[in-house]
């Protein structure tokens, strides 16, 4: 290593930590961070009998949240949904289901069994997303753990060891070992001790040693953390060969592996047992009767004392007049719907772009991964299919549903392919990890969210520049969050600063209801 860590850099590290702590404190003081352990039930005023008609546009999670809460306090809610199903981007695919991707409609041919399902949209709920979890509790949704990081799953990259798949645990154990050894060396260079007291320096060094499982003399010589090459139970374990640091550095995949338990996916993750749409079912058990399906909103006119919505159902035009309206129609589709919104509002709607997300799944004829000690979790590949997710549903049964591709940021590549090309691509990619993949999987489904009817995209993208929100963007966002005439609210994860999460959809709905409530109290 040619460049040593300077003392100044270390001092920066120390002060940066202080800065974060200060910021956190300020955040909670301003009431930005949630305090309660679980969503407090909303404290809403009972509906005024003369103003109790509510129109909800779109049976997405945010729309259903509004319907559920407002129905509790006596509002008469009608939900207009253009699709044949509720849930929008929460979509679990099972035997016989229609996948309404325009230009690529499919019926799912998975076996008709309870564990044979695929979460084509939302799949995980972090334990810190307390508002969506609050509804899961209130609506009696069975939750189970979602496994994001599985150390026995694989990482595969043509640049790494000639493309031979290695286990996640081999990559992470050795990488941490070598990184720790480097850090230990640079720290023991002496001058580093200065910003630390002796006891701090000692603690730091012992942390580094345990981070990388270093020997007493601060060297990395391999580790049993990666498991055994042989033995280990009735006989002495034999340590696996080390993979050279230089070889590990040939792949960029470490980011995915080391980030698996950070940020949004840092907390324990949950999923709804039996499929994520059980959450939607929880809501529709209460408000399902109020949903009009295949009802496409065509015009929204906000008036002084209410909102008129025209929509088309079964080829006939209908009018719905409501006192209040909550609208989760995706922004870029709303711009094509006749409306009388103020110009800043339409400007905001037009501004938002959409992420392209793409997922594909296969039915596996047998659960071959379980024979390789894999139960749940993700294998990462440096190819466009990118990920293979192993199901936890139906462990040790004969068959299971595998995610065969999840292309998040760059979904356009697969979107542009035909169904057949997509499947061939995933088979070719997947067999780099599981050599017999092609023969072990069948009945594929592919879902390009950019083409899903009535959705046409994944998460709302507000920021043109990934590094942060511009002032203009913040202004547009706040404008869109405000109601028009106190009568019409845009909701959905699109009206949040953290899109692509169910929590954001729920919180946007709660924000809108709380705002209405405040206005009614005033």
């Amino acid at each position, binding site marked *: 290593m040619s460049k040593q860590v300077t003392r100044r850099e270390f001092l920066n590290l120390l002060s940066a930590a202080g800065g974060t702590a200060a910021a956190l404190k300020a955040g909670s003081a301003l009431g930005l961070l949630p305090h309660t352990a679980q969503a407090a039930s909303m404290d809403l005023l009972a509906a005024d009998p003369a103003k109790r008609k509510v129109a909800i546009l779109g049976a997405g999670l945010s729309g259903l949240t509004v319907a559920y809460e407002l129905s509790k306090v006596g509002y008469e809610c009608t939900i207009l949904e253009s699709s044949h199903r509720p849930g929008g981007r929460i979509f679990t695919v099972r035997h*016989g289901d229609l996948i309404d991707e325009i230009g690529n409609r499919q019926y799912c041919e998975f076996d008709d069994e309870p564990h044979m399902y695929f979460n084509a949209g939302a799949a995980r709920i972090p334990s810190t997303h307390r508002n969506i979890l609050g509804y899961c509790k209130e609506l009696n949704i069975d939750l189970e753990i979602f496994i994001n990081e599985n150390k026995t799953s694989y990482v595969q990259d043509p640049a790494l060891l000639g493309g031979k798949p290695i286990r996640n645990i081999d990559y992470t154990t050795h990488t941490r070992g070598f990184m720790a050894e480097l850090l230990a060396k640079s720290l023991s260079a002496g001058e580093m001790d200065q910003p630390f007291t002796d006891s701090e320096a000692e603690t730091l060094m012992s942390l580094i040693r345990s981070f990388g499982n270093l020997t007493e003399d601060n060297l990395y010589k391999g580790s049993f953390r990666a498991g055994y090459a042989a033995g280990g139970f009735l006989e002495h374990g034999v340590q696996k060969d080390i993979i050279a640091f230089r070889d590990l550095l040939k792949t960029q995949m470490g980011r995915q592996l080391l980030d698996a338990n950070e940020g949004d996916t840092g907390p324990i993750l949950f999923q709804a047992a039996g499929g994520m749409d059980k959450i939607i079912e929880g809501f529709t058990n209460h408000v399902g009767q109020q949903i009009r399906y295949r009802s496409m909103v065509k015009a929204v006119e906000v008036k002084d004392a209410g909102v008129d919505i025209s929509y088309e159902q079964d080829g006939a035009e209908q009018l719905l007049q409501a006192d209040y309206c909550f609208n989760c129609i995706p922004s870029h*589709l709303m711009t094509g719907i*006749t409306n009388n919104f103020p110009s800043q509002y339409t400007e905001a709607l037009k501004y938002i772009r959409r992420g392209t997300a793409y997922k594909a799944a296969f039915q596996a004829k047998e659960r071959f991964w379980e024979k390789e000690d894999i139960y749940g979790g993700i294998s990462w590949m440096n190819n466009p299919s990118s990920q293979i997710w192993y199901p936890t549903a139906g462990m040790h049964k004969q068959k299971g549903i595998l995610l065969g591709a999840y292309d998040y940021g760059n979904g356009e590549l697969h979107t542009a392919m035909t169904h057949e090309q997509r499947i061939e691509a995933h088979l070719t990619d997947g067999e780099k990890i599981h050599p017999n993949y092609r023969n072990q999987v069948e009945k594929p489904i592919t879902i390009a969210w950019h083409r899903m*009817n009535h959705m*046409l995209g994944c998460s709302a993208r507000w920021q043109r520049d990934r590094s942060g929100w511009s002032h203009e963007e913040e202004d547009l966002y706040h404008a869109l969050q405000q109601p028009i005439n106190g009568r019409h609210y845009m909701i959905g994860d699109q009206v949040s600063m953290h899109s692509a999460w169910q929590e954001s959809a729920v919180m946007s709905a709660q924000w809108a209801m709380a705002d209405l409530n405040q206005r009614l109290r005033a």
Partner: protein
Amino acid sequence: MFKTFLALSLFIACIGGAGAAESEREPFDDRYCTTCHGTEGRGNEGVQAPRLAGMEPWYLRRQLENFRGDIRGVHPEDREGIAMRPMATKLTDESIDDIIEWIFGWEYIPAEVTIKDGDPSRGRGLYGGCAVCHGANAEGNESLGAPALAGQNDWYLVTQLKNFLAGYRGAHPNDTYGAQMRTMVSTLRNEAGILNVVSYINTLSR
């Protein structure tokens, strides 16, 4: 204002394998155009899909056939065309007939003007050559195969002119009409010319 011509069920289709449950499967049809093209095909800037309401049936058919036949929307830089092409790929002749009839029932409402930075007086001069085919009021001319431009979404006209200029549209050997148009667009020279002519078209009405 709104007319429905054919019972939707006529063109509702089912695909896929056999099975007892097939009759229970969710039906679907090919009238999905308004998801992108907006209420009654009035255009949607949010997805860059232009106005279809009021479009000449012969022109609509030609474009659908061009998209279906991989004649339009194939150039890798043609983002919007690439979004549209797969929407036509699986349409049958029967479906195209149905769609044209359906769209014909939509009321023509001129699109909202969104372009503010063009100069219509300069555009007027540039438009002189265009009028030969598209008509003095940009009302279109069926015998020359040139569609109406007046009332179309201005942002869409801009994309098309840029695409013709760059050769993203009108370059396919089987795109006879597109090729005619492509040779004409060079008179606009650059983006400023495009904005000027489109802001002039914005002043015309059919």
